[in-house]
């Protein structure tokens, strides 16, 4: 399916529910909505890694849920407060905007190229499912040589939208990160099949 143009994005934003695409708030529609994409802003909450607490990440280990929360910590920044992302540092951020996708649309979150040229990557898991509702967790990574200063509210990402071929009964997305309003800790441990693949090592 084709990417949506600026004019088509606007028509989706103005449809009635349940077909409406919601991106709230769009603080500056003229600037944020561009041909083929909508700029998204950085939210106020971050998840940092406490490296000293971290032995390793093994999603199949007992107590991984508690461990993930133990070695990650939330930090809230106020408007105007800076957040410094150091080279090679991975931090989870979140979009300021809350999104609601109708069943007929999907999307990809990409780094705005101006930030990318400074070494900033904002998402590695970039696909947004049809039917998703919530704020998107951003995987912020500084691939550059110098620390990058970020502020809540700046436009760091762009959301590229495309149509989805829907059958007679559109599916409803029930992802594990649905309805998030802050960055979410990884819930990789919810993959029950992981235990199947790790069974041999456990037995040994």
């Amino acid at each position, binding site marked *: 399916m084709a990417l949506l143009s600026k004019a088509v994005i606007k028509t989706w934003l103005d449809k009635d529910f349940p077909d409406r695409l919601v991106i709230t708030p769009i603080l500056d529609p003229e600037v944020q909505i561009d041909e083929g994409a909508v700029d998204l802003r950085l939210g106020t909450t971050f998840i940092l890694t406490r490296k000293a607490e971290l032995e390793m990440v093994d999603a199949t280990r007992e107590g991984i849920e508690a461990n993930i929360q133990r070695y990650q910590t939330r930090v809230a920044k106020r408007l105007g407060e800076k957040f410094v992302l150091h080279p090679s540092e991975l931090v989870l951020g979140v979009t300021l905007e809350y999104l609601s996708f109708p069943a007929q649309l999907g999307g990809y979150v990409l780094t705005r190229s101006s930030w990318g040229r400074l070494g900033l990557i904002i998402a590695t898991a970039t696909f947004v499912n049809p039917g998703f509702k919530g704020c998107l967790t951003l995987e912020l990574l500084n691939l550059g040589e110098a620390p990058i200063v970020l502020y809540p509210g700046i436009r760091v990402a762009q959301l590229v939208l495309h149509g989805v071929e829907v059958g007679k009964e559109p599916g409803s997305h029930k992802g594990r990160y649905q*309805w998030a309003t802050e960055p979410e800790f990884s819930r990789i441990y919810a993959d029950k099949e992981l235990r199947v693949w790790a069974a041999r090592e456990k037995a040994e």
Partner: protein
Amino acid sequence: MDAVHEQLSESASADSFLKAEKIREEGSRLLRLTYPSDTPPAFGSFVCDVCDALGRLILDQYRAPATPAEERELTLVTICLVARIAPMLGFVEGATSDKTPANLVLPLERIGEAVLPGSKFIISRQWRYNYTVIELRQLLESPLRAILSPNECDRLLTKLSPNLYAMSFPAIERENVLLHVNFAHEVGHPLEDQYFLPERAASVLIELRRRIEREMPGAGVVRLVSTIGRASELTDAATRELFSDAISASVFGPSALFALSEVARLSESMDEIAEDMHPPWRLRLRHIVKVLQERGFLDQEDFTLKAWPEATTGLPNDVKRKVDDWLAEIGDITSQTSDRQAIAGDIAARCAYEIVERTLPDVREFARANLADPYTCEEFRDDVPELLGRLFHDLPPNQIEEAHNKVRPVKVASILAAGWLFRLAELLSLADQPPRDYTQRVGLLNRLILKALELKTIQDHFGAFHGTVEQGGD
């Protein structure tokens, strides 16, 4: 000075200095944490400055051995440090972003500043299950003036807001954002003194005396004085609480009734006067219902929601009926007069509450007339159904969107009211489902409301800079 006392006092200077240092160190540590507002760290910085000043005072006055007068002074300094200064850090520590409903703090501060112009607020958690307010400057100024030189004291106090309040909420309710509507009641307390002018208090006392003398013919002077004193305290305490309830209802409309009823549910009795002399819950709810009826939110006759459009789009048909059903239950509670019967047997309470109930229309009018920006039934009717519709679509109720480029900001009161109506209309019926399901739904609602409050704050901030987004009225 006996030998033991001398031994104990031997290191008084060092001990006092050490305490000042430890409090300052802890204050400095707290300053490195994150806060949703500038006010708590500014106050933490003030506490550190006070400790520095007291530390300098101890060093300047150090003599070995100290005279008895110097010993007394050091004792005063130490008492000030441990009894007054150190507990202040509790307000700072409880105000960090991870201990508060951070997105609610700035909106609440703004509401507080609108009710009490020129005031600052530290919103902090406490483990007591209560909402409280404390004026911090009054608490600190007199002990500091007793110790420090006038110049030093003035220098320090210029850094402290003249009207600084610590508002505390029950820690276990941090995420129960809708319950924090009760803050408006606490904001009302500092306003009380504008209502309780000395001449008003004097006339109440004269009337109480007349009534009680008539009720207790032949009683001795001691008994009469004691009864009048208690009746006076009851009148004062009840009127102050009911005054603040009127402020809360004026700031937040029906949400004040919903939030107060949630606290009232936890009490053992709806009819008894509380140990802290707060009036019976039934009377408080009846009083708030009356405020809401007078302001056009509720129907005068049948308690139903009056501030509601004739037709709504995008909402389940039975939303209003479910809210009205809940209001009918409140109507049943407030129509009963068992609180008056519970009071009738106690002469002091009866006389006090006859005066309290008679003055309530005046209290309500004063609250209405003295609030700069009360929440109106028109704002409720225009905004809340639309915001409620967003919640039914699992969206934060931060604004009303006519089109992607045509949005209307709303008041914080409307956001919270939409949350309450959703809870009454949609979640109340789930309460008999497995607790985990109910908890998840309530958790989602709280998150959406907090997100809406965050977005509103950001929209106001950006709109002011950009000039494209209309300001939200709060």
